[in-house]
């Protein structure tokens, strides 16, 4: 990102922080968009503005997500390769709504919600994915990169651009190439990986360097000390540094021990573990642990995933909401979790759910 673009964004954030635009105001979506831009660019958001954004309640979040979904433009049904400012506009608007999505997801997280299980945000994400599915029939990725121009600087990892095919030879992609060669995650990108697993491929490649390993390890330790849940990707990376093969959570409610001995089984006690993005798949996972069973729920577009395996059970079909669910009767030992992408690549991880610790 050029310095001037950073400066523009900072100035805009300062102006918005000083403004009286409330989160319930009609223009609040533009605040969220700038917030998303800042998160994607790794720019610190003024405290006053961040507090205002985080004060949005669920009804407000719902309204903002629905408005953004309404604003998703129809995808271009054809492209004039000679010169098409219309397509340029539509693609840039699409990326602006990506920032709205990123901003809403962060606010949802503040409310303790994994955003993709909050229907309006999930619905917005789906609308954007449908746009990409249609637009990618006509647009190669390098053309999209040119059209969104300086907004390429907001891309963390492949992001939504991964949905576009590499079709054309690239004659001139100066900034994009430069970014790939000199990638260094911003603190926001690093935190995004640590807590939501996003950008694993690029960040873990960067973290192979000794200094970067220390930086990433320090961040994970700091978050863990604050009891911030870490993504499965971050935990997996962290265990690999320590030559550990599996990831353990002390999460099974105590009632399971009682159930094992035939006493009263309290099925209402559940523990939820948000896994975040699984490897570099386009899938987000969650474990729901009760005394009697563990459920793996994976959120992924039907077209993005071939199968989800949890222990000895496999599902090859999501439900109508693109949720892939596998139940296991309270496993006591290590369990393998495998998500196979549509392209045949698999994400594998071995996990253990142990008894919850006494509070």
């Amino acid at each position, binding site marked *: 990102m050029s310095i001037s673009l950073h400066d523009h964004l900072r100035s805009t954030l300062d102006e918005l922080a000083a403004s009286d635009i409330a989160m319930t105001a009609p223009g609040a979506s533009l605040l969220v968009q700038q917030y998303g831009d800042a998160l994607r660019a790794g720019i610190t958001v003024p405290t006053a503005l961040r507090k205002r954004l985080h004060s949005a309640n669920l009804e407000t979040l719902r309204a903002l997500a629905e408005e953004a979904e309404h604003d998703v433009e129809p995808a271009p049904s054809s492209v004039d390769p000679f010169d098409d400012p219309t397509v340029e506009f539509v693609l840039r*608007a699409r990326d602006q709504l990506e920032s709205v999505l990123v901003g809403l997801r962060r606010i949802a997280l503040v409310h303790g919600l994994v955003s993709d299980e909050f229907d309006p945000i999930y619905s917005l994400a789906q609308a954007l994915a449908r746009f990409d599915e249609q637009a990618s029939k006509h647009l190669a990725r390098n053309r999209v990169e040119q059209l969104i121009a300086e907004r390429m600087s907001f891309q963390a990892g492949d992001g939504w651009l991964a949905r576009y095919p590499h079709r054309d030879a690239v004659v001139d992609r100066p900034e994009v190439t430069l970014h790939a060669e000199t990638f260094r995650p911003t603190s926001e990108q690093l935190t995004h990986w640590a807590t939501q697993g996003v950008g694993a491929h690029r960040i873990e490649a960067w973290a192979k360097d000794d200094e970067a390993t220390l930086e990433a390890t320090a961040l994970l330790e700091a978050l863990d000390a604050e009891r911030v849940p870490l993504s499965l990707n971050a935990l997996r990376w962290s265990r690999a540094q320590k030559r550990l093969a599996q990831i353990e959570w002390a999460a099974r409610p105590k009632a399971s021990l009682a159930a094992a001995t035939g006493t009263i089984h309290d099925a209402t006690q559940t523990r939820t573990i948000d896994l975040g993005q699984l490897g570099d798949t386009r899938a987000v996972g969650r474990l729901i642990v009760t005394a009697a069973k563990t459920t793996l729920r994976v959120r992924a577009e039907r077209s993005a995933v071939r199968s989800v395996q949890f222990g000895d059970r496999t599902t090859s079909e999501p439900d109508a909401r693109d949720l892939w669910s596998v139940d296991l009767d309270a496993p006591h030992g290590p369990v393998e979790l495998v998500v196979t992408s549509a392209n045949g690549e698999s994400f594998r991880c071995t996990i253990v759910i142990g008894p919850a610790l006494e509070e």
Partner: protein
Amino acid sequence: MSVTVPSREFRLPTNPTLVASPLVLNVRPWVGHIVKHPLGALESPTQWNAEGFDRLDPPVVKASERDAFVTFVQDSNARGGACGVPSICDPVSGEAQLEQPLPCFGVCPSVLVLGCRQQLSALSDRYAALVDELLASVSDGVVVPRAKAFAAIARAATPAGTLDGLAVLAVGVRINSSYTDVVAKVSRADGVRVDFYVRSRTLRWRTTMRRIPRSPTAAARQLLDVPRDDSMSATVLVARSWWQQQQVPNR
């Protein structure tokens, strides 16, 4: 048969001053832009008015004009013409143009291009007038830091129509696979946009298009969407009357 866009000189109070001088355009690209934008040649025949030039007040194009144009082209083809725009030649089953520039811009026979230009005479005048209209709306504009304009426009992005009449000129850079252009965009809140190439502080018309905003916030996004940074991107030129109505102090 040629067209002059804009019809007169506009000096814009940017820093440095930008000048939009009358420019005589070739018939071929001009017809191409009319066929592409107000007549919606890249859309399916049933969606020809997706850009909404028929919903401006006054409309730039009417459905009856498009019908007459389609009839003209089909008659030309019946007499041996060679129009290669599927959505115009075959309005029932014509698919949108894919992967190729519109033939009007290059391969269409000149005699047909000239015929189209004549047929589209009234529409051409109204389409050209939009360029003057948008330049006039910012010609006495106020130079405002982009961040300040963003906050003001975000505050005004309400369903009450507070953005109505607002036009903004922004300068940025457009990059293609083999070249880079400095471009200026004048955007109006109703989604009409005129793009110019900037050459030695002179504006040269590039296109006029419209994208009807889907909400007031979408309108605000359109108004402020400036491509890649240029040295002039730190500020935008905002229509003075609107800025004053907002009672936002000018920096």
